[in-house]
């Protein structure tokens, strides 16, 4: 705040003003009582007052009433206690235009001691456009995540019908068998036998198997807000692999799971993490299918700070050229590829404070994709973390 301190002496009034007006941000200077001493061009546009109108007035002029009331209290409180609520911190506040429009602002406040007492200089940035962009991006991202889920569903649809068919077939046959026997026993005046009850039990198990499949599919399709929870990464990945075996069914690619014995806790939206694993797995299965050895290896590990899931395949890896645009949206080397899988997966990983990395392999080595997530930080005891 040296400039402000010096403004009376070193910098002429005129120069200070032109400095204010060339600034890209709104700048306001107020005194200890909250009276505005400077109000630059950007502020004129932001709030709809000229600097002549604004200067001399209380800064509450440009605040929504509910903030205006507390601002004087803030100032008084700060003078009394020196407790800083905003100075040097920078935060999001609301401003009010002359016409009553309330809008979000980023405000950082500095403090200067001058001959006339303390002054506060506020730098303001209109957050409306940035907010709109942010909203659009997160909307798009949610849509895209939903879309890949659906296209994964498409592929899985046929396989799923098959998968459901088995328990339903078994269930109906068990019921047909037991219904016949009950009829026969009933005709003979005998009570149902233990054998019939055992068949009924099996029927119930098959019905459960069917509904479990439906539940898991539903989890994948339903669009919902990210739900962070502390989860064991091994379980989350396991479930995704089980699910993808629908897709891989009948295929000859072996999926090897290399998991440790101890739980690996991360704070994550399990469904989104599964989305990443499914994307990586789909890519890996596609190339492994065409390779000689036909395997995909999924391993999980961790160090103190991070957890890792690596997906390696027996494919040929990828070239340096492909590597450059791998994570870009719509970058694909496949005829019917969307080129979204990796882009979305990385976005999700980064949203979780992690990342997605690629090792190109080559020379007989397949590619390795590694998902990195921050480990859950244990505040209490490690053991009762999970329900």
């Amino acid at each position: 705040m040296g400039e402000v301190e010096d403004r009376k002496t070193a910098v002429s009034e005129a120069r200070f003003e032109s400095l204010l007006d060339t600034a890209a941000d709104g700048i306001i200077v107020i005194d200890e009582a909250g009276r505005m001493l400077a109000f630059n061009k950007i502020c004129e546009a932001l709030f709809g007052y000229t600097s002549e109108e604004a200067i001399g007035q209380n800064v509450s002029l440009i605040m929504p009433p509910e903030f205006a009331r507390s601002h004087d209290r803030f100032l008084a409180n700060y003078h009394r206690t020196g407790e800083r609520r905003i100075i040097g911190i920078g935060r999001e506040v609301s401003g009010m235009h002359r016409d009553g429009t309330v809008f979000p602002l980023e405000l950082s406040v500095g403090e200067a001691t001058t001959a006339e007492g303390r002054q506060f200089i506020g730098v303001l940035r209109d957050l409306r456009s940035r907010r709109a962009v942010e909203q659009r991006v997160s909307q798009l991202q949610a849509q895209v995540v939903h879309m890949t889920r659906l296209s994964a569903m498409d592929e899985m649809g046929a396989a799923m019908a098959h998968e459901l068919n088995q328990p339903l077939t078994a269930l109906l046959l068990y019921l047909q068998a037991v219904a016949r026997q009950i009829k026969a026993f009933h005709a003979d005046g005998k009570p149902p036998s233990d054998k019939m009850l055992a068949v009924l039990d099996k029927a119930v198990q098959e019905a459960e198997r069917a509904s479990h499949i439906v539940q898991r599919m539903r989890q994948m399709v339903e669009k919902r807000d990210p739900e962070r929870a502390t989860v064991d990464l091994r379980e989350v990945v396991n479930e995704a692999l089980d699910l993808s075996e629908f897709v891989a069914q009948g295929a000859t690619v072996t999926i090897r799971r290399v998991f440790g014995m101890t739980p690996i806790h991360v704070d994550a939206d399990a469904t989104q993490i599964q989305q990443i694993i499914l994307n990586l797995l789909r890519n890996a299965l596609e190339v492994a299918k065409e390779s000689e050895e036909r395997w995909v290896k999924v391993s999980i590990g961790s160090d103190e700070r991070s957890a890792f899931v690596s997906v390696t395949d027996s494919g040929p890896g990828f070239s340096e050229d492909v590597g450059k645009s791998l994570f870009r949206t719509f970058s694909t080397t496949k005829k019917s590829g969307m080129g979204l899988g990796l882009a979305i997966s990385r976005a999700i990983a980064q949203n979780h404070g992690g990342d997605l990395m690629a090792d190109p392999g080559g020379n007989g080595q397949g590619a390795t994709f590694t998902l990195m997530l921050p480990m859950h930080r244990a505040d209490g005891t490690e053991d009762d973390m999970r329900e």
Partner: protein
Amino acid sequence: MYFIVEDDASVADALESLLSGAGLPVRVFASAEELIHSASLKPEDTMIVDLGLPGMSGSELVRHLEKAGATPRVIAISGKSSRTIARETEGLSDLKILRKPPAADWLEAITA
């Protein structure tokens, strides 16, 4: 004798319950290879075979048995689309098809 060739253990078990519950003699195999390896079928036998077996498929098994001169009555079961079933069973004569999941009583259909 009724021979069941079905890789899904629950479906095979349920089918066995249905047939043996009606007092019919049943043998169950999880694959075509297993059946070829350990059983010989006679014309009076009935084979209930899943078309979508891993390894040698159901229709390949039927062709194999026809070539070997053993032609039991064949009932094919499948959960696939009718088009796929038609393609897979092309050229096979005398074949009853039951689709999964069952829409009617399978014991009646099998013993009819």
